[in-house]
Structures are given as C-alpha cells and as structure tokens.
C-alpha cells in the first residue's frame, strides 16, 4: 500500500518538476509547481507528517505560488519569453556548471549514504520521534522550546524585511513629488 502510494506520487512529482522546467508559459510552469508541491504533501502524509503536509499546501501552494501567479499576471509576462537574449552575461554557462554541481552533490548523497535518505540523522536527533505525540505536538515542542530563540530571530528578520521593502519602495519617490502620489495610490490599490 505504502509503496503504491509512493510510486504514484513520485510519478506526479517528477512529471510536475519536468513540467516546470519544460513549459514555455510561466503560468503553466507555476501550475506544474503546484502539482509537485501537492505530490510532496502526499509523501509527507505517507510518513505520518500530517502537519507538514497541511503546511505544505497552505503555505506553498496557497500563498507562495499564488504570489508568483499574481506577479506574473500583474506584470503581464504570461507569454513565452524571448529565449535568444541573455540578460546577464555568462548566465547560461554558469547555470550549467551550477546545475551539474547540484546533480553531483545529490548523486553522491544517494549513492553513499542510504541512512541520509531514510532520515536517520536529523537536526533534532532521534528523540523528536519518541512517544505517541502527534507530529504537530513534537514540532511545537522543538520549535518553541529548544529553538525558541531561532524562531524569534527569524520572526524579527522577516519583520525587518517587510519594513525594509516598504521603506525602499517609498523612498525613491520622496525626491520627486509627482511620483509620490502615484506610489501612494498604487499602495492603496
């Protein structure tokens, strides 16, 4: 049963991943990404990580890809891009090198460490798996107990990022009055 579920969701995930890279239309690529994310959520459920599965759907599929689609639609780049122009010099050879390096690292991990793939070594140690508690309870205890400081720091970082983004978008227009009104109205909308 578990193997069958794994096989089906693996096919879905891989098909989605290929679709993201292969499709020329950005909106289609984003939809393939959703397919991959939902497939991974199924794998989470298969491993009894129900909370992670829910978060995967709520956060990644429900917020992040929606944001992608939003930007794609608002900027109107939903047609296939001209592929012959290279915006940054040397981008493609560099991408090939980085891709090959990533493939090499992943290949090494798969070949050398079977234990790494089954997750025997993990950040929280094995004690996170002790007891009958649900995964949400265990994650809550680890995140808000042991790693509470890291969580707080991340929260502060995100707040700083949001405030910074707002300040940056508004500062450029302060020197010029006419643009400010436009920015303010855009902010309202």
């Amino acid at each position, binding site marked *: 049963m578990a193997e069958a579920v794994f096989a089906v969701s693996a096919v879905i995930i891989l098909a989605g991943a290929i679709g993201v890279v292969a499709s020329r239309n950005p909106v289609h690529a984003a939809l393939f990404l959703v397919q991959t994310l939902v497939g991974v959520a199924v794998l989470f*459920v298969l491993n009894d990580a129900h909370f992670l599965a829910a978060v995967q759907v709520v956060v990644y599929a429900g*917020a992040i890809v929606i944001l992608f689609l939003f930007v794609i639609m608002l900027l109107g780049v939903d047609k296939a891009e001209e592929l012959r122009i290279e915006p940054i010099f040397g981008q493609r050879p560099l991408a090939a090198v980085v891709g090959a390096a990533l493939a090499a690292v992943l290949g090494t991990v798969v070949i050398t460490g079977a234990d790494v793939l089954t997750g025997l070594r993990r950040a929280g140690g094995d004690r996170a798996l002790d007891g009958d508690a649900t995964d949400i309870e265990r994650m809550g205890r680890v995140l808000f107990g042991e790693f509470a400081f890291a969580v707080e720091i991340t929260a502060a970082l995100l707040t700083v990022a949001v405030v910074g983004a707002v300040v940056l978008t508004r500062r450029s227009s302060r020197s010029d009055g*006419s643009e400010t009104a436009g920015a303010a109205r855009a*902010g309202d909308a």
Partner: protein
Amino acid sequence: MSGTLVLAADPMLAGDIGLVEVVLTLAKVVVAFAFLLVAVMLMIWFERKLLGGMHQRFGPTIAGPFGILQTLADGTKLFFKEDLVPDRSDRFVFKLAPYLSLIPAFLAFAIVPLGGDFNNGGQVEWWGRTTYLQVADPPIGILLFLAMSSVAVYGVMLAGWSSGSKYPLLGSVRASAQMVSYEAALGLAVASIVLVTGGLSTHDMVVAQAAEGYFGIVPRWNVIVTGLVPFIVFMIAGTAELNRPPFDLVEAEQELVGGFHTEYSSIRFALFFLAEFMNTITMSAVIVTLFFGGPAGPVLVSEVGGVGIAWAWGVVWFFLKLFVLLFCFVWMRATLPRFRYDQLMDLGWKALIPVALGWFLFLTALEVGRERGWNEAAVTIVSLLVFAGAALLLVRAVRSGRRARDREAARADEPSDPVEERA
C-alpha cells in the same frame, strides 16, 4: 517509510480494514455529497425567496410549489446552453478552473461532524463498527479546511487569467488579493479555537463543546468560551473569503461586467455557481462546528420502538444551527451595501488581523495563567490593558501614515513648476 498509514482518528479505521469499513466509508461519502448537492439546490432557492421577501417582492414562484424547483429548471437550462470557449483563452486552464473551484468546496465539507450523540462521545455503532458521523476525521482536522480554502483561490484566479480578456482578469486579481488577505484573519480565529480545544480534530472540538456548560442552561459553545471576538472575526473573514456581499467586489457588475466568470457559459458557469453556494454551506457548517457545538445538543427521545435514535438528534441540531447561519448570510447580503476596495483592504489588514491576533494572545495569557495558578482577574485586567495600549498605538500609526500620505498627495496636486510637470 512507515508501513501503517494513519488516515484518521476514526475508531472504525484504526483496526483491520475489510469490506464493511470500505462500504461504510463509501456510503458516508455518497451521502455527504448528495446532501451537499441537494442543499445547494435548496439554498439557491432559499436565498432568492428570502431576498425577495426582504425586498418586498415574491422571488421565484412558478416552478413547483413556492418555486422550489426553480434551481432545477435553471440548472437544466444551463446544461443545454452552448458551451463557449473564448478564442484567446488558454483552453486547458480555462476548462480546469471550474473544477478547482468546486472540488475544494466539497473536500472541506468532509471534516464536518454531521450527527451523533455527543453526550456520549458522539460515536455511532453500525454493523458492529464504532464510527463517527463525518466523512473523515484526519489528524490535521481543521487545517484541512484552511488548506482547501487556499486551494480554492486557484479556481477564481485561473478562471480570470485563462479567459484572455480584461474584465475577468481584473476580477480575478481582486478576488485572489481579497481571499489571500482574509485567510490570515480566518486562520487566527481558528487558532483561538484550537487553543481552547487543545487539538485540531473537529470531532474533539465538538466533544469539548458538548461538555457541561455554565449555570446549567448556557452551553459550553466556543462562541462563549472564546469570548465572541473570534466568532465575529471569523464570520466577517469567512464572508470575504466566500466573496459574498458585502464583499463581492469580485463580481461588481457595474465595474467588471461579471467578474472572473464573465467568459464562462453553460455547464462551466453552472459549476462556478454551484461552487459558490457549496462554499457558503461548507463555511456555515464549519462555523457551526467551530463555534456553536456542531451536532451537540440534548437528546429528547432516545428510542423509538426499541431502535436507538439518539444519534439522529445530533443531525437535527446540526441542521437547525446550519439553517440559522445560512439565514444570517442571506440577511447580511440583503442589508449591507458593497465595500469599496480600499475599505475592504483596510478592514482586513488594519482591523481584523490585529484584533484576531490580540485576542488570540489574550486567550493564551488566560490559559497560561490558569496553568500556573495566577490570579485570573489580574491576568485579565493586565492583558486587556496591554491590548488597549497596542490598539491605541496601532490606530495612531495608521493615522500618522494616512496623514503623511495625504500631505504627499496634496504636494503632488499643486505643481510647483508647470514646465517640469509636462516634461
């Protein structure tokens, strides 16, 4: 990879799964689906009839007694209409979008407990199997509802985009911005319920609310336990999430022709329409579960002719509560005028989210105080003072932001150098 798949807390699915379990589960799915479809049909009629009454007119009267078959007639008509796919549309996505709207609406309904005698744990025994009267009770419980409401955004968003025309795109951008914004408030209101319940399972939520209430007559519903505020936030955010009036800017016909489904016709339009009403019913059912004790209620007659019917009272109470909420949704639609877009965003981000977050922290403080044995009155007063202080700060921040914006806008309106302005 673990070999055992834990799909639900339902006791029926804990042991071996044989034919009876599969048949029972299938029966539950079919009954729930059939119920939803019939409920949608009746809800559309009910809404039109009630709106008619509130507008001093009749509403549907021709088809069947009291016009009750009007929806059936409309649906049949839609089936036989020509199914148009616009020339400039993205054909596959255009055809996919209605289903993306419809399916989450049904899936979210699966976690709603529909009946059962919750004075005795809410379980029923059929054919020697102990089970719950709900399609599924997954470990993530209410999170499934939140996940489905975030997936439902895709239907609206892709419908507008794939139509390949302007007004639907504008409508869908509005809709998705609105739905994403209000999801946050919705989630925070749910968090308050999860806090007082101590778990995500909808079944456990109803069990907790079925416990002994206050003064013998006031039930222990979460709407009282959490102090009304999360309920109000959830109700408003839920209405916005449904894109129902007064939050129906998505299909503001004066501005957008018809919103994201302008280009849809025939059966595909019917699917959107169905999804909208299905979502309304699902949302009401979830509100009943979260805040009004779901099927929990007194058992008046426990047996008829030797057959135990205690579980049926749960169904009765559930439907009564559902009916009241659906009435409220129609009532709001008939009463309130549509919001302006900036008012909508202001309400969501500057009022609902801060209030929901503040109230959630207040409830947390109470819970922690109870656990540590602090003086409850002191905790309440101190937290409310902090709450008021934060609210004051927020109001001041919003005001000074608005003033700065007005100043900048005023400066922009009076051009200092007309030549530069033209350049």
